[in-house]
């Protein structure tokens, strides 16, 4: 019998929606899952006493105690690996990494260990670990603290990678990740922690892994993005409607691996044009993967080459003017769309 069935009484039966921030939605997901399943515990730097470097875990130490909300030293390789090992024995660790940049220190545990376990041991044992970490740029944090590596992880068989762009998906995808039997990397985003949205309160609300969403329906062109790039792209879509009479459809990927190519292809088959947007470097990145899959799935539907917009391929400089120029800002996305529509 699973812990799910043993402890139904511990979940708060709530319904309806509530407006909350992205970070509150993540917190709610963790709280609900910790109530639902004893095996779920959180560990990471500053997650307990300090309540999270970005306050995502505020209140959880007080509610669940130091055994289930575990502060770690600064030793990512050690505690990510510890999460991997705990997961092999059936625990459900959520490991918070302060930012995606620091996950590189634990890359070996993620790619060489977590991702390999199920296949390498012939399916004998799994690794249901969740690694949560914010990526993204835009606050002058400079070269070592502004990176988006989701393409690296999403290119690794054995890992699942999700990247919610709004509070409801943040809650639903984190819950799906915690319940999943495989290692899931949940990529959050610094600038959207404070964004608000309606979030279902039902403790059984989950967003399935591997399903994109049509964030804005449209007919003229398909814009494909994830995480913060979706937020920007949605803003650009409104601008396009107002200033240029362009009706853009925005596909929010939500999951990067598995990737919902079906939803993307259906949209492109309808609009015949696609612009892919990401906050990371496009070379060998998420948009590179999208472009390849779109040309393969939609070759006959395309009226223009698939365009890509991402971070300028430089280590991000500190100076505000350089940083702004390097980022895939709204102006650059808009220009790419107009270019793809043949309007420039």
């Amino acid at each position, binding site marked *: 019998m699973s812990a799910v069935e043993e402890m139904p009484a511990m979940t708060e039966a709530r319904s309806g929606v509530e407006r909350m921030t992205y970070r509150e939605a993540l917190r709610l997901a963790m709280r609900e899952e910790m109530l639902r399943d004893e095996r779920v515990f959180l560990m990471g730097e500053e997650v307990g006493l300090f309540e999270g470097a970005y306050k995502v875990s505020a209140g959880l130490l007080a509610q669940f105690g130091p055994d289930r909300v575990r502060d770690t030293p600064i030793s990512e390789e050690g505690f990510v690996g510890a999460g991997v090992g705990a997961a092999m024995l059936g625990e459900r660790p959520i490991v918070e990494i302060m930012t995606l940049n620091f996950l590189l220190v634990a890359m070996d545990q993620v790619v060489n260990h977590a991702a390999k376990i199920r296949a390498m041991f012939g399916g004998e044992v799994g690794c249901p670990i969740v690694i949560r970490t914010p990526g993204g740029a835009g606050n002058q944090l*400079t070269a070592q603290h502004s990176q988006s590596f989701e393409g690296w992880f999403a290119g690794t068989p054995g890992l699942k990678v999700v990247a919610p762009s709004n509070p409801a998906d943040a809650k639903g995808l984190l819950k799906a990740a915690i319940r999943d039997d495989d290692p899931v990397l949940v990529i959050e985003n610094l600038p959207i922690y404070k964004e608000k949205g309606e979030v279902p309160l039902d403790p059984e609300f989950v967003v399935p892994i591997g399903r994109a969403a049509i964030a804005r329906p449209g007919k003229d062109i398909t814009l494909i993005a994830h995480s913060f790039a979706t937020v920007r792209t949605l803003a650009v879509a409104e601008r396009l409607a107002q200033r240029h009479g362009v009706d853009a459809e925005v596909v929010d990927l939500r999951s990067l691996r598995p990737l919902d190519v079906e939803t993307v292809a259906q949209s492109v088959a309808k609009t015949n044009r696609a612009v892919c947007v990401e906050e990371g470097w496009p070379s060998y990145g998420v948009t590179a993967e999208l472009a390849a899959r779109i040309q393969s799935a939609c070759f006959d539907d395309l009226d223009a080459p698939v365009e890509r917009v991402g971070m300028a391929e430089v280590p991000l400089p500190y100076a505000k003017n350089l940083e702004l120029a390097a980022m895939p800002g709204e102006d650059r996305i808009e220009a790419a769309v107009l270019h793809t529509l043949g309007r420039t």
Partner: protein
Amino acid sequence: MPSTRTPIRKRSASVEVAQGPVSAEAIASRLARFEQMCLIRNFEEEAERQYKAARIGGYCHLSSGQEAMTVGAVQAMREHDLLVTGYRCHGFALARGVPPQAVMAELFGRRDGCAHGRGGSMHLLDAGRGFLGGWGIVAGQLPVATGVALSLVRQGRTAAVLCELGDGAVNMGAWHESLNLASLWRLPIVYLVVNNEYGMGTSVQRASAEPEAFRRAAAYRMHGERVDGDDLDAVAEATQRLLSMARTDRKPAVLEAVTYRYRGHSVADAGLAYRTREEIAAHKEHDPIERVAESLLQMGAQESEIAHARERARAAVAEAVRFAEQSPPPELSALAEGVYCHGSDIQFARMRPGSPFGEQELVFDAGLGR
């Protein structure tokens, strides 16, 4: 060599220096150190003001309270020694002689900054002065500094590396790997562990199974010792001795300096969620700068000399702000300059067709590999 142990407890103002007649040079040199400490304190206070006025962005880690450790350690370096630090590096840059103008301009993200506005607060550098960088990934600078020491050996140079790290960095694998390499290869390096009692909001006690970091050196048969990091003379003496041991005998060492940061982890952290106001106030009672001021008086320095030193430090910071304000931001048309070495543009020339939107103007035409 056995590890020695010094208690964490802070001593009151050091008076040993006052015994016997004191030379004018000794007073002058101490006044210069005092002025450097004041410069760092004033600089940090100004940086906080400018950050709050949104003229400095990103992360901004201040070192107020740590001035004796910083100045004492850097003063012990010789001209050809090399310095590598983490991200809390304003004080180290200033102590190493990087002009405050160039440091402030860097914090402002301007062209005349010591990293040309590309690095910001965490990534100061002045290669000409042997300062090989402020680095932002905890413990990432340790293997790098270890390799710098290796190159000193390979090049037959009589110099040593001083590598700063925080108390939080000693739990990273990179620390252990670096210490092992340094000891195994007998590299001229001193790892300066700045124990300011916290790594972000986590106290040393809560993070380290062996909270006395210097003891870990023994695991690599390396010398380790601890000093009162708020005692300028103690830090200078220990650093000098260990650097000289590294330089001449190729014996690496760990020096742990116990100090305290007055401000939060960064300007964005109020610094009160994990420690009390009383704790901070208690440390301020033994302020390292005032300890030096007292000792100067005991040596026979004039009140006016001390006041002038304070005044010069303030003026230098004001001048630094003026300079930074007037320095232009980097040119947009140079966004990609410095990403690769000169001449790489030829290698990249054939990557242009079909590049992502905007890449041509932003990167290829903006100095990539030129």
